[in-house]
């Protein structure tokens, strides 16, 4: 793909959304993150030509925005763009796969964000470790240790006794007022 192709953000959009959804845990926050990422990418469009790996660059923008958002804490704001319906608050569990996937989502949400990022870039994007290191601005060793700890932690969480339904439902899919 041409690095200065003006259509390319549309091409990346589904993958940015997939990663953001997994990272943020709900549709609103995820799409806000994607929108901020796209706007940042356009603001820096002058740099595209010099970007060697557009994917790593875009995910890097998203990473920084996500970190900034985390630092500020979450807000009880739902911004409605014109004509959009009220956002759904909960991720619908897929009928067939059922509880196992929902457990995975809740286990994932319990991982520290830094481990979640590495894990998701590798799992969803099949990103080479070196590209993960570039996107997140980390040394390779840190990428590997976060991947290892993240996978092991997720494994432990998934092997824990099944949570009560109330505990699963109590997972903060609604935005928390701080």
């Amino acid at each position, binding site marked *: 793909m041409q690095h200065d192709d003006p259509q390319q953000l549309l091409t990346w*959009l589904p993958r940015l959304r997939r990663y953001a959804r997994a990272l943020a845990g709900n549709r609103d926050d995820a799409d806000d993150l994607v*929108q901020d990422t796209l706007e940042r990418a356009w603001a820096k469009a002058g740099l595209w030509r010099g970007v060697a790996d557009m994917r790593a660059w875009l995910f890097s923008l998203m990473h920084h925005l996500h970190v900034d958002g985390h630092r500020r804490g979450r807000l009880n*704001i*739902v*911004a409605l763009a014109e004509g959009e319906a*009220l956002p759904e608050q909960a991720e619908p569990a897929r009928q067939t796969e059922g509880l196992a996937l929902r457990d995975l989502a809740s286990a994932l949400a319990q991982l520290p964000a830094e481990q979640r990022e590495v894990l998701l870039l590798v799992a969803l994007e099949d990103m080479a470790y070196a590209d993960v290191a570039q996107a997140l601005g980390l040394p390779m060793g840190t990428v590997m240790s976060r991947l290892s700890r993240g996978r092991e932690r997720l494994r432990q969480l998934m092997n824990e006794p099944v949570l009560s339904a109330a505990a699963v439902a109590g997972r903060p899919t609604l935005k928390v007022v701080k």
Partner: protein
Amino acid sequence: MRPEDADTPVTEAELHAWLDGQLPAARQREIEAYLASRPEEAARLADYRGQKAALRALFDPVLDEAAPARLLRAAAPRQPWYAQRWVAGLALLLLGTGAGWGMRSALPAGGDATALALAAARSPEGFARRAAVAHAVFSPDQRRAVELDAAHEEQLSTWLSRRMGAAMRPPHLQAQGYALEGGRLLPGGQGPVAQFMYRDSEGRKLTVYVSNELGPAGAASAPAHAGVPASAMPTTAFRFAREGRVNVFYWVDGAYGYAITADAGRQVLADVSNEVYRQLVSE
């Protein structure tokens, strides 16, 4: 298998790299041989492989979702920033002032410019645009950004309250990093509106624009509370608009409209809006 590799210790990182197919082929095979004699390790890695597949199963459906319009717009190619800002600024001024000649040229032939301009004057969107225009016009002014400065806050409140026929007190936003500079009275769509101006430590301006002339359209009957999920109070949901570099957060509550405008990020505005709303509700 090269003999010198056979005894190379297998690291944790290599096990992951094996799982993710990121090792040279020869080393991949060595790791397989290594795992063949270590069932516990093999089981652990099988779990990891299962995680990877499950994550894909959980999130791959997002790839096929229709993206919301706002994201398609944000991703779509756009004009160079200078053209975009100029066009956005022009649209703002036209809608904000309702200048007849401008409206006509901006509308399709035969459009009823006056009716549209009137509708724009009463609609929340028209309100938000006027707030953005007022911000753009007054915030760069170093010497006369406000009519009455913060040193005369009492006077400012009294004056604006009297002119608007309702209590008008500037929200306090020190905790958000904004100090009150003062305020002014401005013409709105039909009557007066109040504008409070703030600045942060670096001199960046933020304005709070308050109107009480918004009609029943888009009005809320009951005041809502900040702790309630927004879905329970759709009529006062915060809305976000971007006009060039200027971001506007606005909401409508009964006849009242509030717009927070700044050349600042969405999060900053959301934060300030939350605080302004909180102060209004607790008044």
